[in-house]
């Protein structure tokens, strides 16, 4: 075959849910270095070689919703994939600025959605942990640790929410 395959590489990396902005920054730094995100998986990122800075990457927690991905494709974005509730998009930088949120209200709604997910998973783990503890099953400790961690994450998201709300008091 004469067709040249695009060079690819896989990077394994872990980000905490509340560090989603850090994750997005890292993905954009990779794109700046000539590695565009092409596939996502659990703690797994597949990049393909691109012109440095050719793509802008965005991610968001969003329920499964085909009409939303259609909507983004309509504006020229490519849907890369989904990991649990997180969806990843990229768009060619030459099409201009690419953002998912442009006002405080929608940023707050996004954070509140993340907070609800963390709370739901956290409480479920707490419940399982407590039930196991009463049943004398030591495995429940894992759930309690997990619940504590998720509650910590909830605190971090809450901090971000409060900061946005304070900014909104005077300006939109």
């Amino acid at each position: 075959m004469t067709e040249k395959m695009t060079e690819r590489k896989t990077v394994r990396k872990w980000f905490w849910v509340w560090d989603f902005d850090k994750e997005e920054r890292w993905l954009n730094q990779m794109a700046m270095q000539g590695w565009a995100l092409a596939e996502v998986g659990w703690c797994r990122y597949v990049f393909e070689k691109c012109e440095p800075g050719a793509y802008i990457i965005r991610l968001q927690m969003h329920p499964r919703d085909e009409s939303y991905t259609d909507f983004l494709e309509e504006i020229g974005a490519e849907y890369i994939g989904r990991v649990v509730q997180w969806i990843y998009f990229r768009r060619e930088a030459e099409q201009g600025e690419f953002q998912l949120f442009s006002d405080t209200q929608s940023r707050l709604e996004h954070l509140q959605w993340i907070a609800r997910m963390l709370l739901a998973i956290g409480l479920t783990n707490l419940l399982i942990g407590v039930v196991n503890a009463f049943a004398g099953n030591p495995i429940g400790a894992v759930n309690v640790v997990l619940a504590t961690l998720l509650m910590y994450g909830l605190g971090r998201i809450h901090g971000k929410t409060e900061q946005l709300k304070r900014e909104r008091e005077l300006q939109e």
Partner: protein
Amino acid sequence: MNNELALTESTYYILLSLYQPQHGYGIMQRTEELSGGRVRLAAGTLYGALSSMSDKGWIRLLPGESGSRKKEYSLTAQGLLALKNELDRLKELVENGEKILGGNDHD
């Protein structure tokens, strides 16, 4: 006047853009054009706003052509009213500002 809450800038421009039926991308372009490039609606923000506005009955989804995935929206009578109320509110803000800070008449 009524005690309705002020519209956000995004809401105001989305409604204004929908004075003529538009699809999502059209709304973004129209808003940017109307505001002289100042207001750029992001996709997620616009999508969320469109669904809240549909729930409120300010806009409605037009029946799409078969095979087309592009959704077109249009303003409803209620949406037009919300827009007009906001315009009155904005006029009041501008009038008071000019009265106190001096508009074109005084210097």
